């Protein structure tokens, strides 16, 4: 009897281990899958701006936002992340990466050495980018200043430092499928949807998250606690922005000024520094898509 029990336990553990191993294999995109491409640096710059790469990866407090040496500390409920160097330095940055490495990182959240990235790197949104846009972005990043220096390791609370387990999380939230335009909607709305859901990664802050740090789909864009700490990120669905015209939203993305004459603060100021550099048409497209979101009642901050 005992013998049978022991065998059963061993078999179950082996099955469980195998299932875990299988489900948590870091996914990659092969060079062969990419095909030929002529990089468009101007489009790469647009992706760099829309993606807000410099918001996290630029050397903190530096005047030049194209020095992507990393080092910024991002606090989260799971530990503190230290943003890595993505400058074209061959040893410390992404200078030695292949295009497939870069596309894999953005669309699968997997590093060139086959480890899972933590989703503080918003690949949950970047996976919606078109591979050609990722490749243009990669080509553009290669033109930026080389910054040497490796950033220290993340400081994660137990058990979140165990990266292999992230495979299970990614099984839920990462499918690597790029954005597909809706032929029933205008080109402007599709462009806006692409910028917001893909490179812009707006939902990453403007949505509440569940206990394991995944975005609660039913509350997407309905606001929530600031993932970086204090304060509340506003609901940007028409439930909250009902009084705002498309023009008002586009204007905020250029000036940082809200409808009541106030200015955005915190991380949104950095976002506006980027969106102000986009083409006016892209700000209009973002605004059109935000305006078209379904109105969702978000949760409210508890009063202090």
């Amino acid at each position, binding site marked *: 009897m005992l013998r049978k029990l022991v065998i059963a336990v061993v078999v179950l553990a082996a099955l469980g281990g195998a299932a875990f191993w299988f489900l948590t294999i870091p996914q990659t995109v092969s060079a062969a899958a990419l095909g030929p491409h002529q990089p468009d640096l101007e489009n790469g710059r647009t992706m760099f701006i829309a993606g807000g790469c410099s918001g996290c990866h630029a050397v903190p407090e530096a005047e030049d936002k194209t020095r992507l040496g990393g080092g910024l500390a991002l606090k989260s409920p799971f530990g503190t992340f230290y943003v890595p160097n993505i400058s074209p330095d061959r040893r410390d940055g992404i200078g030695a990466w292949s295009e497939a490495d870069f596309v894999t990182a953005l669309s699968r959240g997997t590093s060139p050495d086959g480890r899972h990235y933590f989703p503080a790197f918003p690949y949950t949104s970047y996976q919606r980018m078109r591979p050609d846009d990722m490749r243009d972005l990669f080509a553009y990043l290669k033109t930026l200043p080389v910054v040497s220096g490796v950033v220290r390791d993340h400081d994660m609370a137990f058990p979140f430092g165990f990266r292999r387990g992230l495979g299970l999380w990614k099984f839920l939230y990462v499918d690597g499928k790029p954005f597909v335009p809706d032929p029933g909607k205008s080109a402007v709305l599709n462009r806006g949807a692409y910028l917001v859901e893909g490179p812009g990664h707006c939902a990453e802050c403007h949505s509440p998250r569940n206990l394991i740090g995944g975005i609660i789909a039913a509350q997407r864009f309905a606001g929530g606690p600031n993932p970086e700490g*204090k*304060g*509340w990120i506003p609901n940007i669905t028409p439930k909250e922005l009902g009084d705002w015209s498309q*023009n*008002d939203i586009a*204007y905020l993305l*250029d*000036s*940082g*000024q809200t409808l*009541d*004459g*106030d*200015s*955005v*603060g*915190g991380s949104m*100021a*950095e976002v*506006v*520094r980027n969106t*102000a550099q986009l083409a006016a048409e892209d700000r209009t497209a973002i605004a059109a898509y935000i305006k078209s979101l379904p109105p969702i009642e978000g949760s409210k*901050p508890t009063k202090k």
Partner: protein
Amino acid sequence: MLRLILPVAALALAATFAAAQSDPIAARKALMKANGQQAKIGAAIAKGEAPFDAAKVETIFATFADAAAKAPDLFPENSKKGGKTEALPAIWKNKPDFEARLVKFGDDVKSAQAEVKDLATFKKVWSGLIRKNCTGCHEKYVQKD
């Protein structure tokens, strides 16, 4: 609309002056409120919702210039707390930066006053003026919740 706004702005300025001596928190709030009201008027012009009006634009810039000139004196050491202030402690930790930003704000307003002649020139300077000064400073020094 203009007839309503001018007296309101004038009142806000007068109130600011009276309050500045005794209550710097109330005084700076009044300045920021006046700025916000004027910024809304400017936004309407920039967005094409209101026509370009040289007199209105002059009032906007005059209000901004007034705030830039008076604000440095309205953040004394004893005004870090109270009066539901949204000013962050970072202001007093980075006083030289904070004050340099106010000087820059005043300078940028002066350049805008010199440059803006019509709708085209207004649109050219407006968003940047707001983004680089209002938004830039609020990013570091105003509590949002």
